[in-house]
């Protein structure tokens, strides 16, 4: 009986560490994917390639939604992990919205609708500030 209790006692913290670790790994992996996507969008914008930018912005959005799905599937076992998960979900939702605005901005740019392009790009920037702040907070919670 005593041995069984010891085994349960040993298993409990390991399980919670494992579930938090998987969340942390998923979060870090998708953060990396988002960073790579964003770098591509930056490059396309810098080189004035709106078609390419629109394509990449769509990809960015899809990746942000995939990140959300992957993180939603994780089950953190600590309060800190739960907070990190909630923040990470919010951050990737913001990024999905940012991607949408980038797509709209690029499309407006292609149609020579400068005012609409500026308006969507500005909205994307505002959303990205919120997303970045939330992502950093999630990273801090999951550290």
């Amino acid at each position: 009986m005593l041995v069984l209790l010891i085994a349960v006692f040993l298993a409990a913290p390991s399980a919670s560490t494992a579930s938090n670790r998987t969340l942390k790994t998923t979060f870090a992996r998708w953060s990396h994917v988002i960073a790579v996507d964003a770098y591509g969008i930056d490059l396309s914008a810098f080189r004035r390639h709106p078609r390419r930018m629109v394509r990449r912005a769509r990809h960015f959005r899809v990746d942000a939604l995939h990140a959300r799905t992957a993180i939603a599937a994780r089950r953190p076992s600590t309060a800190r992990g739960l907070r990190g998960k909630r923040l990470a979900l919010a951050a990737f939702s913001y990024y999905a919205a940012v991607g949408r605005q980038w797509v709209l901005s690029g499309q407006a740019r292609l149609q020579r609708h400068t005012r609409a392009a500026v308006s969507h790009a500005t909205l994307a920037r505002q959303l990205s500030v919120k997303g970045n702040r939330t992502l950093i907070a999630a990273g801090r919670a999951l550290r």
Partner: protein
Amino acid sequence: MRFMKVILILVASGLLAIGIGATVAIADDGGPEGSPEACVVVPPASAPANAANAVSAAAEDVSKEAENLQGDDEQGDAQSAQGDDQGQGDEQGDCNEQDDDNQGE
């Protein structure tokens, strides 16, 4: 009496082994994050900060370009778009490691 002690020790050892086995199994139950990805480069802890910086820089440049009245690089854009359709032709200086051909479009 002695025989009973031996049996008790054996049972206790067996339970301990089961307990340790369960601990290891639960700890390794990471689904996709489990052992198959041990050979994959794990993103550094600074990944969120890197992502935030990259998104911030992209947002800045997209805004700047939207405001820029200078014409687009039509030729380069057409070439890169064509490259996309053929699954090749990344922009110069592009180190995007992913194939972004129409995923989710």
